[in-house]
């Protein structure tokens, strides 16, 4: 009788292990997929930024200040080996973008350049898509982190090496409210 109880308990535990493992694995895959989507939008923005700088160079016939830094950050993203590295590289690029844009906008001749304005608008659009993809990624990451942090799954997560994943946080300067009135008057 005692043996049957032991086998029963072992079977329930094994089942719980399998279900928990699958849940965590599935959620981890969701996080990776969400990051894949986010990465695609982030890369699209980097490409557009590159286009913007090239357009500015042609239009002003000058070297754009800080261009090398953008190139370096871009190489950091392309050369990243895993999700964590890529995430860090993107966050670094994210911090640099407002400064780069501000530097480019110092050139008055760009104000009426149609190509430049079109790309700038396209970046604006991608920005919205990035926000959506970022919220999607953070939502999946949050769910995953919650799953592996709560008892008793945290024990199983430890055994199988599931560790918490970082969120894609917006840099502080991005959190400020955008003054659209000022943007239109610019």
């Amino acid at each position, binding site marked *: 009788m005692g043996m049957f109880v032991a086998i029963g308990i072992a079977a329930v535990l094994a089942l719980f292990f399998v279900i928990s493992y699958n849940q965590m694995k599935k959620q981890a895959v969701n996080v990776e997929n969400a990051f894949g989507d986010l990465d695609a939008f982030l890369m699209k923005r980097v490409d557009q930024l590159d286009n913007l700088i090239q357009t500015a160079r042609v239009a002003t016939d000058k070297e754009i200040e800080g261009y090398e830094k953008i190139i370096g950050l871009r190489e950091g993203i392309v050369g990243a080996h895993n999700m964590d590295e890529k995430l860090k590289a993107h966050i670094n690029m994210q911090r640099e973008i407002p400064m780069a844009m501000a530097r480019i906008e110092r050139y008055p001749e760009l104000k009426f350049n149609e190509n430049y304005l*079109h790309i700038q608008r*396209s970046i604006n*659009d991608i920005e919205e898509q990035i926000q959506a993809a970022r919220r*999607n990624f953070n*939502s999946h990451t949050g769910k995953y982190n919650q799953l592996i942090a709560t008892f008793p799954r945290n024990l199983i997560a430890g055994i199988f090496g599931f560790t918490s994943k970082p969120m894609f946080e917006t840099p502080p300067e991005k959190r400020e409210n955008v003054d659209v009135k000022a943007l239109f008057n610019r």
Partner: protein
Amino acid sequence: MKNIDEMYQLERFSKTDEEFELYYENELKPKVEALEKERLKTMDLAKGQAKKLILPVAGLILIYIFLSDLAFYAFAAVVLYGAYLFSDVRKQRKALSQKIKEEVVTDLVHFLNQNFTYEPRKYLAKKQFIRSNIFKNNPDRYSGDDLIKGFVGSDKKEVQDIDGNPTKTDLSFSEVHAQKVERYRDKNGKTKERVHTIFQGLFFIADYNKDFDGLTIVVPKKRKINILPSIFDSNSENKLEEVNLENIEFMDKFTVRTTDQITARYILTPNFMHRLMEFTTREPEKAEQQETQEQPKSIKEAFQMGLSAASNSTTESYFETAPYFSFRNGKMYFMLPTKKKHFEFNLLLPLNKDLIKSYFSDINIALELVDELNLNLRIWNKE
């Protein structure tokens, strides 16, 4: 003078109650008063015909008491006679209803927006209703009226966005009634029909201010059981995922389902969710009006006020039932289940400012939708 939204410097298209009052006093009042005279004439005719029915009805009662075998035939005869007597009243009522739509509603539509057209007998197509994907069942019976369509903003070349696209938002709406017919067998094996209303109210379609593919639906939480997507056949539930958004208040009120999680978040930004919540949970503006309402001076007036309270509706009352939203391929579908006929009148009630104001509110809500949700804001690429 144009109304301007402070935050985004956008033109506001909806009109205020004060603007309506002014327009009513200056333009509509004489027309409404003339129509009220016609209503009273029709009422007099109805009263006269009702008097002619008193004797036949009394006779019917006597037949019922003393010659009950003939009661059925007598009843049929009185009904036919009544129908004959009131046929003129019905005709006049119909003509008056048509006149109200042609003269008052058409004027109101143009007052609210010069670029709107009004077609009293047309309505938004059934295929558009199905495309919105809000309801599980496709309607078997579909009807409606009072189609208003046009655009807000400008289609002029000189008013363009940076990519050369006109800064206008196409908008159309009408009253619709969608029903599902359920066939079943009764105890005797006979096939019978049961008709269920899927939706009755105002149905709006507007350009959304961003381009997107796929489908995202936002429906009131409590109606979750009834609302399942229909277009993707029986596997549709698997194709639309439920989305969990950050706004807890929003998620308490609505269920969001989508074909793509990122698109859903692209549409439902934190700001848009906030605006959607504000739009759907607006405070009623009726309180002040009720306080100033006069006491009835006679039983007739009390009766009319009671009827009026029951049938009159203003914008606020629509939101007693939460609206449905759906976003599909760059369009926004919006449904207000008001469960009543719009731009109609009751022969027993006076044609007055309150009634016309309810018409005004029905049309103005489309413009408020554009204003409150910033549908005419074009800072994204939109073809």
